């Protein structure tokens, strides 16, 4: 019915008493997500949202008290790395980090540490996850999607909403929508999510929304070509973007010719992915 999150997801919100944390917690509760705990250091013992969610000082105490198995983090960028490591150390299985603006060297260390611990991370700088009708973890507007059999994975935020919106408008439903985030170093990749959708009996077709930069789309193309049986429709943002400000010679050497939208579209098409010219064309290509 969904991947990564479902009705049984017991959610902990890191940074729950901040403006964004509080607002989106109320949205998630309203959607039906089981938000069992919040964490804000120094505010342990309080309750927020009319006494619906208890707040704890540390993730460890929150997990011990509530059995939370998933965390979503709205913690400010300068404390975000620590928050992810804290959740991982407390054996939270899935961490969804919404925070944007985390220094890339922090993320390189965090990603390595989380891999060693075996913790799955989605994000950072991502809109999170939505399994329509079951659970919402993050900030994707719930009302724009309905339950169905299309899996969506995206590096983008609002562009994803655009696609969800046009799917719903065309009468199509979604199994799970996964925003993996657009940062240079993040957790879960396209390939990770594609392989989950391939295994998921409740997903029939997949939408992949990529953008310029990096090689995640190229790896996805290789995976689709080698291991996927389900049809994939794609959109790559940035066809008209000017070549990015280059990072010296080293950047050019490391990135080589990769990262261009045209190249990503080419390899995805070779892998059998139907590429939309614009986001609102996706429902048509899924039919």
């Amino acid at each position, binding site marked *: 019915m969904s991947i990564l999150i479902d009705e049984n997801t017991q959610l902990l919100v890191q940074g729950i008493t901040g403006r*964004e944390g509080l607002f*989106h917690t109320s949205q998630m509760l309203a959607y039906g997500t089981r938000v069992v705990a919040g964490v804000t250091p120094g505010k342990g013992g309080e309750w927020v949202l009319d006494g619906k969610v208890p707040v704890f000082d540390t993730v460890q105490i929150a997990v011990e008290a509530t059995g939370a198995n998933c965390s979503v983090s709205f913690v400010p*960028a*300068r404390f975000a790395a620590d928050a992810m490591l804290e959740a991982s150390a407390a054996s939270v299985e899935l961490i969804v980090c919404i925070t*944007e*603006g*985390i*220094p*890339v*060297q*922090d*993320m*390189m*260390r965090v*990603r*390595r*540490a989380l891999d060693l611990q075996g913790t799955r991370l989605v994000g950072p700088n991502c*809109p999170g996850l939505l399994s329509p009708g079951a659970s919402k973890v993050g*900030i*994707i*507007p719930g009302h*724009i999607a309905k339950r169905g059999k299309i899996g969506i994975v995206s*590096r*983008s*935020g*609002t*562009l*994803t*909403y*655009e696609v969800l*919106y*046009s799917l719903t408008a065309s009468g199509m439903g979604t199994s799970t929508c996964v925003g993996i985030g*657009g940062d*240079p*170093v993040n957790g879960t990749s396209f390939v990770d999510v594609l392989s989950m959708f391939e295994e998921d009996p409740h997903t029939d077709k997949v939408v992949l*929304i990529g*953008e*310029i930069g*990096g*090689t995640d789309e190229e790896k996805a193309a290789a995976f689709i070509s080698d291991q996927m049986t389900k049809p994939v429709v794609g*959109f790559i*943002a*940035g*066809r*008209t*973007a*000017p070549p990015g400000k280059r*990072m*010296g*010679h*080293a*950047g*050019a*050497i*490391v990135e*080589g010719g990769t990262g261009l939208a045209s190249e990503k579209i080419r390899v995805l098409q070779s892998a059998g992915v139907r590429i939309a*010219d*614009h*986001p*609102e064309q996706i429902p048509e290509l899924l039919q």
Partner: protein
Amino acid sequence: MKLHEYQSKQIFAQHGIPIPHGRVAAIADEVRAIAEELGGKVVVKSQVLVGGRGKAGGIRLAKTPEDAAGLAAKILGMEIKGLPVRKVLVDEAVNIATEIYLGITNDRTSRCPVMIASSEGGVDIEEVARTDPKKIVRKRIDALLGWRDYQGRDLASAIELPREHWRSFMSIARGLYETYIECDATLAEINPLVITKEGHLLALDGKMVIDDNALYRHPEIAEMRDIDEEEPEERQARKFGLSYVKLDGDIGCLVNGAGLAMATMDVIKLHGGEPANFLDIGGGASAEKVREALSIILLDSNVKVVLINIFGGITRCDEVARGILEALKKHKAKLPIVVRLVGTNDEEGRKLLAKADMMTAKSLAEAAQMAAELVKEKAPA
């Protein structure tokens, strides 16, 4: 954030990397004095944040202090790739025997830092990477373990550096790694790293790019920002936390989210239009931020039509509408504006805008098409 050569080299030196003696100057007389101090024979190097300074004549060898002052006067009047030269670095001239390359950057594919070395340093390093990739050697660095000396030896050996220079090379590689880590750089590069005829290794040129997201923990580096080098629009955008890139077209775009902003540009182009800019107002923007964003677009004389595409999630459409109205009031703009608002509080937003004279679109495709047609209408037939 890019650093100038002279700034990068000063930081390198703090981490034990040998650099030529030299100082920066903004007027020709100072250059003469510095050249005298340095013994007469110097290199005068324009300090602008673009590549290709040498080919543009922005790097010149001077044989005497008089000569240096003369060249500096010329260079300080130049523009390189549109950027006026406001400072020059005056470095002692050195006797170069060999030029090699050493750099460190993030490898996003393997999610770790990577150190890169080549025996073929100098301006043509990217050409070498294309035509003779074996001459480019990489060492991935475990993000938790950090750089280890044996890796420097591996690189020295792989680029066939003569053994008498290994110790010095390893020390420079260690220093470059420390620079990269301690400054939160996304790039730290020495090109060329020269071996002088006297047998010393010296960082002749240096380049650093700092992770903007990490500047909060490096106030001393943040202060190095050279605002003279920015487009005024970009400076204004940065001030309000907006992500803005100026482009060549005539349809100004205001969008929330980088992916959606790029997709909007793509769809404009698909309908025959040309975007005048990339502008992402980010998530949850306030009316004030929207006002400033729209102001930047309205002040761009190339812009003929404005397209506003907002998909409200964290961002509230009524807040966006308020910001639009404030900007219009402030600038008394007469430009045609196409607006598409969907998502959180979109009804309220549309109501607010109903009083203003602007076109509304239901879909992104429709909005782009309208904008492109408006431009054509305005164009002289």
